[in-house]
């Protein structure tokens, strides 16, 4: 019986000790590479940034590591139509919150892609890794991209207290900007004043809310908002006579499929104070991560009624 008891003790001891093995749940760090670039139809210079993932020194706060993570020495080509553009590298020194950062990037001059055209990018990293992607600029080049029912004059001739602009639905995300073009008397230099979608009242202060990316293919701006924006151009009533108001320029950036999908993936966040445990990491970079996208810009001009401007105290563009 004593032997039996000893055997049981040995068995239990073995049972408790035999599984004691250290197991590190952290996977070994493997560097990944990120390529980001947005091709712009309204620019002849295009930019691409390539960075690498990193493990912060203290393994706790990745933001505390401010060293440059750019990948230098990559061979980056963009194929557009029948030409290949080899990107050159450069850097930019910026002051962010008191400390100096150097940002390395790649750029191509004389590359102004047209709406509807495809671009392919290939970045050969110094270690032989290849990052590839492509994008097609949204085709906004058709003559009737904006719906004919859109308002052409401020104020609208139908008597509405708002102007309404409608455009083709391509199923992409749109980023509108509303700009008043004006000139100071005696100057040929055009100036712009941005118009918000509305002015909200926060603690008694009027705060402009500018339009952000949207899936909606229409835009509505109240006349009262336009008048408020016009009033911001001149300091006072007497100063209005120093300005010629030209027109309203609706600048519409149409994101491509890649940027639209990326924008959608960001919309899962409830608010800025919410930390998502498993954030979506949409990428269209083959061989790495990041976004290679594009947008096409198209403009819609809305004239001011001259008498309307006169009534507001401004001059009208001759």
């Amino acid at each position, binding site marked *: 019986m004593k032997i039996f008891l000893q055997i049981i003790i040995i068995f239990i001891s073995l049972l408790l000790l035999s599984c004691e093995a250290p197991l590190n749940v952290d996977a070994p760090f493997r560097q990944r590479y990120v390529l980001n670039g947005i091709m712009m139809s309204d620019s002849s210079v295009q930019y691409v940034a390539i960075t690498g993932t990193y493990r912060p020194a203290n393994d706790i706060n990745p933001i505390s590591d401010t060293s440059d993570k750019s990948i230098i020495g990559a061979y980056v080509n963009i194929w557009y139509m029948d030409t290949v553009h*080899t990107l050159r590298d450069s850097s930019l020194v910026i002051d962010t919150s008191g400390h100096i950062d150097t940002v390395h990037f790649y750029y191509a001059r004389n590359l102004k892609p047209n709406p509807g055209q495809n671009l392919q990018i290939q970045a050969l990293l110094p270690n032989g890794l290849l990052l590839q992607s492509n994008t097609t600029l949204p085709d906004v080049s058709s003559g009737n991209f904006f719906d004919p029912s859109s308002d052409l004059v401020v104020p609208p001739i139908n008597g509405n207290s708002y102007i309404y602009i409608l455009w083709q639905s391509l199923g992409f995300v749109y980023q509108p900007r509303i700009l008043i073009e004006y000139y100071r008397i005696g100057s040929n230099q055009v100036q712009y004043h941005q118009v918000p979608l509305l002015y909200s009242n926060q603690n008694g202060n009027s705060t402009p809310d500018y339009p952000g990316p949207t899936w909606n293919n229409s835009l509505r701006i109240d006349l009262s908002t336009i008048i408020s924006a016009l009033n911001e151009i001149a300091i006072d009533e007497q100063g209005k006579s120093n300005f010629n108001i030209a027109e309203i320029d609706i600048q519409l950036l149409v994101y491509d499929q890649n940027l639209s999908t990326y924008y959608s993936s960001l919309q899962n966040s409830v608010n800025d104070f919410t930390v998502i445990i498993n954030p979506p990491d949409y990428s269209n970079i083959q061989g790495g991560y990041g976004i290679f996208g594009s947008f096409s810009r198209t403009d819609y001009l809305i004239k001011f009624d001259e008498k309307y401007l006169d009534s507001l105290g401004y001059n009208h563009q001759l």
Partner: protein
Amino acid sequence: MIKYLNVLINIFIALTVLVVFNSCNKDVSVTPPDEPPPNGYIFLNSNPEGFQIYLNNILQGRITPDSLTWLNTGTYNITLKKNLFSDSSFSVNVINGKRISLFIDFANDASMSGSISCSSTPSNAEIFLNDSSTGKVTPFTLHNVLPGNYYVRYHLTNYQDDSEFVTVSSSSSTSVYKLLINTTLWQYYTMSNSAIPTNNLTCVTVDKNNIVYVGSAANGFFSFDGKNWKTYYNSLSNQINCSIFDNNTNLLFGTPKGFVAYNGSILKQYGFMTSGLINYQIQSIAVDNESNWYIATQGGLMEVYQPYGVMYWLSFSDTSGNIATSYIVAAAVDHNDNVWAGILNSGVAVKNASTADWYYYATSNSMLQSNNVSAIAAGPTGEVWIGYGLDNKYGHGLTCINGSSWNNYYPTPPNSKTTAIFIDSKNIKWVGTDQGLVMFSSPASPTLFNNANTGLNINGLSGIAEDSYGNIWISTDSGLYEYKGNH
């Protein structure tokens, strides 16, 4: 009892072994390690350098010499392209981790080269390529010329060098033919080889000191003494229409706003408020044996005579014609001081020096070939030569009038327009046309000088003059030319 105890012990031992060997059986999954990138490598160099590299028909944005790196094992199709060269394609087997170095010598590839066929008139001109002598003379074809841009120049003694930039591409032949200018016969002055202010010339006159005076379309007039050019501007107009030496001291230049008299030091202007002209648009000027001036304007013919230094402005009155108000295109005074005036599209008018009467001749009452008279010249023996502008029906010959004898001749090219007639000191006739220069002693055997047989651009001829050496000076809309073959 012991038997049962042994059984129990065996069971415990078995369980113990089972637990010991199975309790640590953990499932731990591990991501496979990243595969290293492929490391195939091709270094491409070429002669000449600068070929664009295509890998599997995709432009790589690299030009030779350069390398293609991080390639997988496999067979790649490489194409090299360069402007003017034929495309060159070949396959390369790449093995991971192995470096391949390729050098393509296009300079010694006959299929890549082109040729330049060189010829000239006359032949035997030495051929220079990019200012290096080839050791060959025309006619000769330079083979195995690498594609590119070349400067081909011909050199032959007593002829002016001529040259041309040519482009040679693979498997093609480029021809360079030059009609070399005989410098023993011709000399020319243009803005490209001299300090002449403009190429667009309208008239030429040589004074008794052999200084050549040239009128221009927009730059006034200027002189050339064989070395230096001197420009003269006037306040009337820098458009010079005509010029003549008045046998005395004055060079006369007609402009659209009057005329200028230059005596070698003083330049006098005769225009609005400074002359008795009835019209200021001067088309031609003639001088008689007494150095009186006959001013042909767009509004009639005037005579200026200066007895004792006093200028008299005489407007001709004539009841039978309209010499006083007509558009006069040309004027000349013959050996007998008869005054000849070509009237725009109306033939010629002649003032008899003895009677001072005017006589009018047109196709209806004379042997004139056309009423579109463009040039008149008087010879030393009394004959007058008349040339014509373009005319659908006529306008390709000359009319010679000597006393009462009228004769038509056709020494000028068919359908040509006569722009100037000059009779030199040897009574050789020089006729300027829009198709070249015609020279003859007898109209039956003329000699034509044009671009095709001289290499000179003398088609737009406007004036002719002779210096005391017998050299003939020619003004054109493309420069000033000197013919030295008249000695």
